[in-house]
């Protein structure tokens, strides 16, 4: 064991952010059991105004943000969505709408395309209406999404299908890939549910089995070869069955920022689950100050904050110790090693719990309220 000689703290100025996720609203017609919005939702009356959002976009562009993701909740619940999109596009931001499709009409989509929207990401909850409508708890949702995909295709805008997968729909992944091709999507994101926030309540009904994960991984590998040049497949595997954690956000405060409906700026969408951090708002501070100088963004930058086993680990610059929110949720310490990691003292308990949840016969969801 080497003696750890602590170097003087010299803070390197972080690189500017590449992407900003603007959660325009937490309002949403769906009730997905793995909703990634925080347990405490922002009320409609607390949402940033049109002018406040546009000013935030301006500051983001000035800071070096290239990609702007317009998200929610359901961003179509904002009546000023087209106006916001146009303002962002005029600032040179690459605009991406992340939507369930509910609330969009053909007319509205054409207006968005006209306003300069660059890309649409449409979520699907399954490959059949029975599955999708049950998971989203919204009757007729699947049929609406199919219509929306057709309207997007007609505008010529690129379409990405977002397929969130879990125990109950994972065996439809092959069909969801085929569906994405049929819908004319250029990309699909197959993302396994992340067990934070609301998804915690539905662990037993959502956690995939190890066999399902292995089948899905193999299927994705095969499909990538078969569909090369047709469909780009991004895949986020289930991390509770992994040996090493994911490099969450590519490292804390390193490439992206997230603005909540009321203007609080977070390093990732779940960061408010870490109670020791204080998050500043665009209502009180500039985006530049928050990115470069705020305590929350600097809390887990670099590796000075790391504890063992991360501190002396070869992989610390690969995965940055994993997800801070998961460390908070599962180890009770946001600076701990992500318990997904085999070197975490909490790993065995996490793996056992994941196996128990995966084997559970529970199928009922507690829908997002």
């Amino acid at each position, binding site marked *: 064991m080497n003696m750890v000689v602590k170097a003087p703290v010299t803070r390197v100025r972080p690189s500017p952010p590449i992407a900003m996720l603007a959660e325009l609203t937490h309002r949403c017609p769906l009730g997905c059991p793995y909703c990634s919005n925080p347990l405490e939702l922002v009320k409609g009356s607390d949402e940033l105004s049109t002018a406040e959002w546009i000013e935030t976009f301006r500051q983001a562009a000035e800071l070096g943000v*290239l990609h702007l993701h317009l998200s929610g909740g359901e961003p179509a619940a904002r009546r000023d969505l087209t106006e916001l999109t146009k303002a962002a596009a005029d600032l040179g931001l690459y605009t991406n709408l992340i939507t369930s499709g509910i609330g969009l009409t053909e007319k509205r989509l054409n207006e968005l395309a006209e306003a300069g929207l*660059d890309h649409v990401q449409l979520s699907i909850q399954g490959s059949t209406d029975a599955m999708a409508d049950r998971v989203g708890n919204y009757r007729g949702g699947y049929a609406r999404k199919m219509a929306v995909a057709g309207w997007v295709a007609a505008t010529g805008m690129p379409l990405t299908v977002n397929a969130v997968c879990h125990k109950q729909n994972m065996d439809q992944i092959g069909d969801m890939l085929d569906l994405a091709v049929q819908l004319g999507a250029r990309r699909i994101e197959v993302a396994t549910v992340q067990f934070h926030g609301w998804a915690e309540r539905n662990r037993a009904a959502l956690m995939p089995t190890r066999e399902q994960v292995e089948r899905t991984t193999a299927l994705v590998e095969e499909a990538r070869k078969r569909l090369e040049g047709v469909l780009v497949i991004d895949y986020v595997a289930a991390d509770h069955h992994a040996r090493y954690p994911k490099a969450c956000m590519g490292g804390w405060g390193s490439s*992206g920022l997230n603005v909540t409906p009321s203007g609080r700026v977070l390093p990732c969408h779940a960061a408010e689950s870490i109670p020791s951090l204080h998050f500043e708002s665009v209502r009180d501070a500039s985006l530049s100050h928050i990115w470069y100088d705020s305590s929350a963004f600097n809390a887990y930058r670099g590796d000075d904050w790391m504890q063992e086993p991360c501190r002396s680990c070869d992989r610390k610059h690969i995965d940055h110790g994993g997800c801070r929110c998961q460390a908070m949720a599962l180890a009770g310490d946001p600076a701990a090693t992500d318990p997904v990691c085999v070197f975490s003292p909490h790993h065995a308990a996490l793996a056992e719990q994941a196996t128990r949840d995966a084997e559970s016969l529970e199928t009922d969801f507690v829908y997002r309220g």
Partner: protein
Amino acid sequence: MTEDTAVETGGNASTPDIVIDGATVAKLARGVKLREDPVRGQTVLLAPERALALDDIAVAIVKALDGVKTLDIIAAEFSELFGAPKDDILADMIAFIREFSNRRMLEIAR
């Protein structure tokens, strides 16, 4: 999760679906944009969930892909401009087009 943390699909250039050669005509697909990035002092190609910093040669190729000229014509122009053998330039361009086409960033007009 939609950030660049997602697993990148590996471009497998050994199994191209479409033939790309000197007669190919290509242009950027809708939703793919070349942009100056003054904050970082570079030129970037922006596409769904991707931002690629391009070197000068890649920028020149992307700008030349106008959906009208064939790769042969562009390679001949570049050969004159940069004083390099046309066949080498064409081979480089074909590899570039194949990779970007596999990433669904280009439309192959013919």
